[in-house]
């Protein structure tokens, strides 16, 4: 077992354990903190996939923005939160069975695919993926249209979130 495999396995175990704590923790603030650990583990995975730009974006957007937003929402909806009683539905065991089923089905389906054990291809050393991605995102023959649509979506989400959460003074 090589060093890189060892790093992968340790990261995977920590990430999946933290993910299980996210869905199992009774206290929602603890769940949010476990979520931050999970997102960090996924950022390490992006690093292992030689996508360092996405590792940084993961830390900035997911850990820096989304999880802080989550913690804010948890604290704003704190009063009368289900601190007592079960945090789970009556049908939680059905959910557990379904997610186990989906995991087995996914792994079985993927293992029947001939590309399942694709070895790691060599990257050409001289490509700068961040620069190439930036050029491709504003290239009229590339991804400029999806890029602009994504920016309009973000603007609409920004305005929509403000309108929805606006407290009307009676």
């Amino acid at each position, binding site marked *: 077992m090589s060093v890189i495999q060892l790093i992968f396995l340790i990261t995977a175990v920590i990430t999946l354990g933290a993910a299980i704590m996210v869905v199992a923790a009774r206290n929602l603030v603890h769940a949010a903190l476990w979520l931050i650990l*999970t997102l960090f583990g996924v950022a390490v995975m992006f690093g292992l996939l030689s996508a360092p730009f996405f590792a940084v974006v993961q830390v900035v957007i997911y850990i820096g923005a989304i999880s802080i937003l989550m913690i804010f929402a948890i604290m704003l909806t704190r009063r009368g939160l289900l601190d007592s009683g079960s945090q789970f539905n009556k049908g939680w065991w059905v959910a557990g069975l379904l997610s186990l089923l989906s995991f087995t089905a996914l792994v079985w389906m993927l293992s029947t695919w001939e590309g399942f054990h694709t070895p790691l291809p060599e990257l*050409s050393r001289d490509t700068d993926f961040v620069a190439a991605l930036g050029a491709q995102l504003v290239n009229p023959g590339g991804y400029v249209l999806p890029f602009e649509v994504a920016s309009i979506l*973000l603007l609409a989400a920004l305005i929509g979130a403000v309108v929805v959460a606006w407290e009307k003074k009676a």
Partner: protein
Amino acid sequence: MIPLSYFLVFAAALFSIGLYGVLARKNAVAILMGVELILNAVLVNVLAFWRYRTPDKLDGQAFAVMVFAVAAAEVAVGLALFISIYRRRNTIAADEIDLLKW
């Protein structure tokens, strides 16, 4: 060397854990956390397929950028909705938000 299968199994496990969170949790914010786990599994898959199958093209990376943007928009609107619902109905439990239930 790590083969592609490691990343695919990891992403499948992350997806299934997120699915359990979405289906089993009562609190709406916790459901949104499950959705975040699922979107992260999708991102791992997208980038793994890019790295192992088409490392010469940038389509996989551009796809991942779009997933990031949509995830950020989804969380902003979702949390605003939950805060608004909490103000009006004083609850955040998904099974008590049943105004549209027939």
